[in-house]
Every structure is written in structure tokens, then in C-alpha cells.
């Protein structure tokens, strides 16, 4: 039995979910950009297997800003109050597999030593429906980090564009089955044929990083970086945050805001010393975290190969170009001195 569903039927489903009070997010056309946004109406959702939104779905689990608790100053006393957690169910639909694949990566970070209850609560009430990719661009490199255009990691259900206005549905988890009720077993018809070629070897890159913390390559490759957070803030896996108090003499809130290792003040010590005082050091940190530190701790890269860093970089830098140059250098060194098996 075919389990195909039309765009119109998907729209009806979305309208139903919105009607039930759920938050539904999907790619939306905003000016010349495709951006994941919460939908106010089903019609705004864009089901395009050939284009990638400029932001990521992490926003819906790890928002750019959230309150942790509130405080009130009463004389010499400080009264604290919890923030009431939002309990609305969320559905992210037509997400890219490289966005969904970031969620198991983030799960580990937000739960490895203590549980981030804000993140885990949102995660538990979020269902992710991906749309397998039917195209890639020069910035895409999912296959270089062990992912792919139909990677099911982090997806509760996956849609496959048949090209005739119909989508095959593949339920992956119970949450996904609950949304659609049906599932097609053989949905992956040739999506992999459209995958980007492998562009570097992450194991070889990790080996090079371990041995080359100090290298002139860092400056040569990253001097153009202007030190903004466009890469980190549109990255599905970057998860750094800052905690600040915002309020006035009467009270306020302790809040958690996105932060980026590319900002000079990210590592500024109270003493005035800054261990990462130059931009190439900050770029090196970002790459080390993604391709050496996180893999050593959790066994996978902190990167899904989505390419957003390069697409959003005002100077066209991104992770891929630096890694390709490092991989080339590492290969050259390996040929000179083969790695002992």
C-alpha cells in the first residue's frame, strides 16, 4: 500500500496540529532566505528537498535566549522564583537531516555530567520530521562526517520527495508513527545517489589536529575571519551559552544566551589576560572542539556537514575549506611518513 502524502494533505495535517495548540516549525521563505520559523499558518511551510534553510532547528530546543529563574530584591532579602516551563508540544517539519542529526549530538552535551532540564524537557515534547535531501551545493559535506542526505539520526519520521507533489513517509520512532500512522518501508529511492562526494577524512584531520596545535597553517587559513558569530549561531551543533543577570534595582532574571568562541571576550579572564587573544586561535578552537575534543569525549564529530558556516560567513570561510586544507596537508605528511598500522 502506498503511503504517499500530498503537499495539500501535509498542509491539512499542519493546520490540525496548530489547531491543537502545538507549536509547528518549518522552513519559511523570508525575503531571499529560507529560515526555520514557528508557523502561524500551514501555508507558509516550504517543502523543498533541494534547498537548505540559513539557520538551524536548534533554536526550538536550545533557544537563543531563555530565563533560568527570576529574582526580586526585597530590602536585604532576595526572593527567587522558578520559571514555569512551557509545556506546549512542538513539531518541526521539513527539517534537513543534517539539522536533525545534530540533536543526538546535543543530547550528549546537555546531559553528560548534569541534566539540562530546560533542554531535555523541550526535547521530550518535540517531534522532528525531516525531508530527505534531493540536492546539495558546494558547501554541503554531510558524507565527510559520516552522515548523508537521508540520515535518520535524530529524525522521528522522514519524508521523501517523489517529485510529483507527493511525499513518501517513513516513520522512524514511535513519535513519528503517532503523527502519520503509516510508514513506507522502501522510501529511500536513490537519495544517496545525490549525496555530495566525501571531501575530507575526519580521522586523518583529528590525527593532524592532535599533533599540530601550534602550526603556521592556522594563521594562513583563518586570517580573513572577522570574528562574528554567524557560523556558530547558524550551526546545528554549536551550543555555547553565557549566563547573565538582567534586571533593575527591583529585580530581574538570570538568563542563558547563545555565545560564540569566535568573540574575543569569550575567553577574557577577570585578570585581563586572554588565552585566545587573536582570531586564528579562536578559529583553531572551534575546529578543535568539533573535530578533536568532542570526538575524543563522545566518539563522533561535533558537526553534521550542513555547510551553514560557509554559506553564512561574510568572507566565505567556513569549516569545510579549512578542513580540506588541513586534510591535504595531513595527507602530504602521511605520504612522507606513513602512519604505523
Amino acid at each position, binding site marked *: 500500500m502506498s503511503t504517499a502524502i500530498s503537499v495539500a494533505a501535509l498542509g491539512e495535517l499542519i493546520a490540525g496540529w496548530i489547531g491543537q495548540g502545538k507549536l509547528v516549525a518549518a522552513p519559511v521563505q523570508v525575503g531571499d532566505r529560507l529560515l526555520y520559523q514557528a508557523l502561524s499558518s500551514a501555508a507558509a511551510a516550504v517543502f523543498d528537498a533541494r534547498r537548505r534553510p540559513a539557520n538551524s532547528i536548534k533554536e526550538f530546543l536550545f533557544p537563543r535566549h531563555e530565563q533560568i529563574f527570576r529574582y526580586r530584591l526585597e530590602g536585604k532579602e532576595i526572593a527567587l522564583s522558578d520559571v514555569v516551563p512551557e509545556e506546549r508540544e512542538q513539531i518541526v517539519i521539513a527539517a534537513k537531516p543534517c539539522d536533525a542529526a545534530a540533536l543526538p549530538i546535543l543530547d550528549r552535551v546537555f546531559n553528560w555530567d548534569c541534566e539540562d532540564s530546560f533542554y531535555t524537557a523541550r526535547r521530550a515534547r518535540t517531534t522532528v520530521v525531516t525531508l530527505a535531501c534531493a540536492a546539495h551545493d558546494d558547501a554541503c559535506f554531510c558524507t565527510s562526517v559520516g552522515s548523508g542526505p537521508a540520515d535518520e539520526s535524530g529524525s522521528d519520521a522522514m519524508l521523501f520527495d517523489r517529485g510529483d507533489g507527493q511525499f513518501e513517509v517513513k516513520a522512524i520512532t514511535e513519535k513519528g508513527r503517532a503523527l502519520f500512522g503509516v510508514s513506507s518501508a522502501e522510501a529511500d529511492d536513490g537519495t544517496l545517489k545525490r549525496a555530495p562526494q566525501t571531501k575530507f577524512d575526519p580521522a586523518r584531520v583529528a590525527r593532524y589536529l592532535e599533533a599540530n596545535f601550534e602550526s603556521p597553517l592556522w594563521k594562513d587559513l583563518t586570517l580573513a575571519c572577522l570574528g562574528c558569530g554567524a557560523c556558530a549561531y547558524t550551526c546545528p551543533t554549536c551550543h555555547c551559552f553565557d549566563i547573565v543577570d538582567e534586571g533593575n534595582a527591583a529585580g530581574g532574571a538570570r538568563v542563558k544566551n547563545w555565545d560564540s568562541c569566535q568573540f574575543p571576550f569569550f575567553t577574557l579572564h577577570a585578570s585581563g589576560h586572554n588565552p585566545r587573544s*587573536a582570531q586564528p586561535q579562536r578559529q583553531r578552537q572551534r575546529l578543535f572542539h568539533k573535530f578533536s575534543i568532542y570526538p575524543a569525549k563522545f566518539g563522533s564529530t561535533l558537526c553534521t556537514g550542513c555547510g551553514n558556516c560557509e554559506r*553564512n560567513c561574510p568572507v566565505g570561510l567556513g569549516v569545510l575549506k579549512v578542513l580540506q586544507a588541513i586534510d591535504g596537508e595531513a595527507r602530504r605528511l602521511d605520504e612522507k611518513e606513513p602512519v604505523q598500522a
Partner: protein
Amino acid sequence: MTERLRQTARRLLEEGNVQVVIGYGASGPVFITRPEDADKLEWNDRCFANLTVYLTRKEVKALGKAALVVKGCDERALVVLEKESQIDRAALYVIGMACDGLGAAKCVECQTHVPRFADEVIGTQAEPPAPRCAPEPNGLDRLMAKSPAERWAFWTAEFARCVKCYACRQVCPLCYCERCIADKNRPVAIDTSATPKGNFAWHITRAFHLAARCIGCGECTRACPAGIPLGLLNQALAQATEENFGYRPGMDREAEPVFGAWSPADKEDFIG
């Protein structure tokens, strides 16, 4: 033009006049320090970035005396930076590229296709060249035709997408403060939160700090990952500056900047 640019860069580096040539490469800005690398320089429709931003970066300054590739629009930033004592123009070699517009919307209304103060200009270009595309869809006139309430609604919706990545600040050649007011935390001047309050505070402050200084290169709009047309705020202030003071930043090397000069003949009565 690309070949002439490479020849110039090679010559400058060989003669030892400069230690680095800052220009455009195949996929972004490049810093050429050896004559044999001059072939990495490119000149094409992707040369958007305003490279004058690098002149105030300490990592780039450390490379030594620079030659800089500029378009006519970018060059206006050099005039302002010089007026504000941020660069030593005599210690800089400016390679100007005559530009017919890069096929970008912002280039349609450009009035400086040929750099005017460069040490050397490569190429020629009639002013103005035939437009290659339609002007900005969200042009300033369209925005100013709206009522204040509509403009408020417009910016509320636009700023709602801001994630505070500060790409707008980092690409701006005139946002060179070592410690931006947005980074001050003892005490906090602007909420770091990407909330309506924090975002309005940031964008209005950014625009005000660039009033009568912004040269209209449009890099802030181009860099914004959320697609917010930030340059419109600056354009509105530039228009007010021109109407009230007859001043366009970076157009005239002799003109006194509006902030940074005063006159007893000022029409406001608080002067003198």
C-alpha cells in the same frame, strides 16, 4: 584586469614597498605576502567584501605595510578612517579597481564606480555604467513612505530574527572600537539577550554610532544571516545628514566630518 592586478601586487612585493597585499582570492579575502603568490588574486563579481575592515585588525597590522584592493564604494571608508585618525594613509598603498557594479542590487545606485584617491587605478569605467539588475526591493523611499506605526511594525518583525551574532558589526570598516558598547558588562549598557528590547537597543545604537560616518557599502545587510536589511537604518541617517549638513561621509577628503568639527556659525543656539 585580474592580470594587471596580479602584476601590480607582484611588483609591489618584489620592490619591497609593501609586506602584504590584501585582496580577493578565489573564495574570499586573501593576504598575499610573497610575489609568487600574487596569482591567487582575483577580480570578479564575487568581490563584495569591503576589505578596508582589515586595516584596523591587529593580526593584519602585524603583517607590515599593506597594499589594499578597493572598489570605489569601499574607498569612502578610507577617507573616514583617515579623518578619524585610524589609519596612516601615507603608509598604505591603495590599488583601486574600476568597477561596473558586481551585479548586486546595492551597485545600481552607486556613484563611485571608479576609486578617486587610489595610488593606482586598474581599469576604466564610464560613470555611470549600465545597471545590471534592479535596485533594492526594500529601498529607503518605500520604507519612508510608510507611517511611523508601519515602520515600527516592519522593524519589530525584522529585529525578531536577530540572533546577536554581530556579523553587522564585524564586517563594518567603521565599527573599529576595541571594546564595543554591546560588550560592556560592568555595568551592562545593552542587554546581551536577543530579545525585542536587547535587539532594538543594539540596532538603534549601532545605527546612531554610524550616523554621519556610514559610507553605505551595505556590508551589514549582506552579512546578516537572518536577512535583516540593516543598511536601511544607516541610509536613513545618511539622508538626514546630507539634508541637514550637506555632508556625505567619505566623498570629499577635504570636508570636515559632521562629528569632529564645529563652527561658531552653527545654526543651533547652543554653540558660541
